[in-house]
């Protein structure tokens, strides 16, 4: 029983650590530390730095420009990325539609779309949820009717994250209603956001941010060559992608970074009052989250060890999603409690509060989404009850 890395893995860790230390621009690092959403220019600049290093397609096969890293290397990369508190990569292109295209797409689709996804030249967004289809995704109603060499798309997608910046959207659409199971008759379609009939309506979240949108499709013509894989198989493709989404949501190292920073912050004297580290209740709550996080890290490591030894990742990704988001929210809460009164100013100008204090309540509000998105945590429990406990 051991968790030591091999010499090659240690050398790789050094390389990755040096990259994040030397190549992550200071302005982006500072902006990420505040906890506020990164502006698109910084986001793309960072993703292009990753691309230029050859590290944009972490999970991609090498033939499409990916890293072809082993599971342990991916783990090391995620660890250093988290410890450096580097910005999250926008997942829709690199982690979602990219893998679907290189796994299920045609040769022509691969040539046309993959290079721009890898280089972050094109911004993608995700069209899954609908006003009437949230966690119950299979009840989606957006229709794509075949008319010669194109589909006519009608319907509404919602919760489309950063859709206001997007050039393209990948959608699950209903191509047939005459099916035995609701999961059938769903297709995976790529749609140009500039196509006539596509409109974007902002949804403002409780922290005042414009992060998500409603996307309307009004008789939008989509060429049939934009259909990925077979008509009616979209549900299968989409599920592969969702599993991905869940594993990525554990974020243990970013959480570890944030807890460590909070401990340091708590030990510093603040405005003449006693340091927060003297507040036993606060420190107990902090310590309890540290224990939960350490347990999660080792759940993740044990899953990784299983994958490395050739087992396929299964419903364990639901564990990681549940615990990862719960812990993230617990840390958000602690930051807000640590800020005291200075959690209260709403996006003030400079000179109010210190560092990320005035973002702490907003971050807390904003991240309530995490236990809801990507299949709410209750849905994850249904999955575990069915597939692990056999209930």
């Amino acid at each position, binding site marked *: *029983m*051991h*968790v*030591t*890395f091999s010499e090659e893995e240690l050398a790789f860790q050094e390389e990755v650590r040096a990259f994040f230390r030397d190549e992550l621009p200071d302005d982006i690092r500072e902006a990420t530390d505040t906890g506020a959403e990164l502006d698109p220019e910084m986001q793309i600049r960072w993703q292009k730095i990753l691309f230029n290093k050859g590290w944009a397609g972490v999970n991609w096969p090498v033939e499409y420009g990916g890293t072809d890293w082993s599971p*342990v290397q991916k783990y090391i990369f995620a660890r250093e990325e988290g410890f450096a508190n580097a910005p999250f990569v926008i997942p829709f292109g690199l982690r979602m539609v990219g893998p679907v295209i290189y796994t299920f797409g045609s040769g022509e689709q691969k040539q046309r779309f993959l290079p721009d996804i890898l280089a972050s030249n094109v911004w993608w967004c995700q069209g899954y949820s609908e006003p009437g289809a949230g966690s119950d995704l299979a009840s989606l109603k957006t229709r794509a009717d075949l008319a010669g060499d194109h589909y006519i798309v009608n319907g509404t997608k919602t919760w489309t994250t950063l859709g206001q910046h997007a050039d393209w959207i990948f959608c699950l659409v209903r191509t047939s209603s005459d099916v035995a199971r609701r999961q059938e008759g769903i297709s995976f379609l790529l749609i140009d956001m500039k196509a006539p009939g596509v409109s974007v309506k902002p949804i403002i979240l409780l922290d005042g941010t414009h992060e998500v949108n409603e996307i309307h499709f009004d008789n939008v013509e989509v060429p049939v060559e934009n259909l990925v894989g077979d008509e009616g198989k979209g549900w299968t493709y989409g599920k592969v992608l969702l599993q991905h989404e869940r594993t990525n949501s554990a974020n243990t190292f970013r959480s*570890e970074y944030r*807890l*460590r920073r909070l*401990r340091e912050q708590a030990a510093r004297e603040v405005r003449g009052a006693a340091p927060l580290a003297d507040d*036993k209740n606060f*420190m*107990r709550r*902090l*310590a*309890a989250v*540290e*224990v*939960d996080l*350490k*347990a*999660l*890290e*080792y*759940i993740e*490591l*044990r899953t*990784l*060890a299983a994958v*490395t030894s050739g087992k396929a990742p299964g419903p364990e990704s639901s*564990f990681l999603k*549940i*615990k990862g988001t719960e812990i993230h929210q617990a840390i958000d809460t602690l930051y807000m409690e640590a800020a005291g009164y200075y959690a209260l100013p709403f996006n003030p100008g400079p000179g109010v509060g210190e560092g990320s204090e005035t973002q702490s309540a907003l971050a807390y509000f904003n991240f309530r989404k995490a236990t809801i998105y990507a299949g709410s945590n*209750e849905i994850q*429990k*249904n999955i*575990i*009850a069915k597939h*692990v*406990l*056999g*209930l």
Partner: protein
Amino acid sequence: MDFSLNEIQTMLADSVGKFIDNEYDFDTRQSYAGSEKGYSDAVWSMFAELGWTAVPFAEEDGGFGGGPADTMVLMQSLARGLVVEPYLANIILAGGILKRTASATQKDEWLQPILAGELQATLAFLEPQARYDIANVTTTATRDGDGWVLNGKKGLVLNGGTADLLIVPARTAGGVADHDGITLFAVDANTKGISRNAYATVDGLQAAEVEFDSVRADDGRVLGEPGAGYPALDATIDDATLAVSAEAVGIMQVLTDKTVEYSKNRKQFGVPIGTFQALQHRMVDMLMACEEAQSLLVWSVMTRASDGDDSKRAVSSIKYLVGTKGRLVAEEAVQIHGGMGVTWELDVAHYFKRLTTIGQLFGNADWHLDQLAAMAPDT
């Protein structure tokens, strides 16, 4: 990176598993627990014959050379049988002190018979006023001629009623909770001046209050240097904390399995109760608690084995987690078993009681959380 058990650990887990399956069903356990001694001498002899009593001792002491991971495997496997034989008191606690402090002569006299299954010993680590501070020792040992005289009272001495040898921390210098000035004595339980009030504990095991009234001990009964007993005491209690945590994780897993199984068979309103979402999510919480506990246990054991700066944090983390999540799992197991869960007849109640007992041993969850709050994590 490798989390699999090695060959020896796998064999150990298999042989303990077979023993519980074939020779230690719940009724047998209950009959041993209800016997006058509270456990079976025959079973204990078998533990020694199979080498289980030798697991945590060095090869030069006649042991198996095992580390925290081996003890974890053993304790987690024994957990399933709710074994009442005094492995914790005799091997982990008394053995833990002796292996750290005893001279060669003392090892021949006490440690060898313990490994051979011929001597029952225990460690009187607690005083009634001390709560979880093991340095809070008011029992005194004063110099008298060429020996010592012990006076004081020890509480909840595990297997204190049946042990032949008592290891007794006594204060020979310093203030009431000082780390310095604690001397460890090995005294025969039937020495003049020792009185023992034995009783059962809520989990069906045994303990005793032990009083020392001018009990004489010669220098040959001092373990290690006089006044310098604390480090060995502290390290042994850490080992014991990890050992009962492993047992707790084993019990959590048994309770979760039994509860899920029960929910598939028990029908109400014409359907298995496991089809109710209100219960499904709670059983998922139990399962996740088990996964967290097992994962953290692995980290704790590896960290303790490397004896690094994070060792104390590892011990407190796992004890805190099994204290809180163990309680969650146990209470849910009883709840989901319904009326049967609160009967003496069903084993679930007895797993519940053992888990609750472990929760109170060697620092409860609150106490360990306080330790953690004051420790900055190593990275």
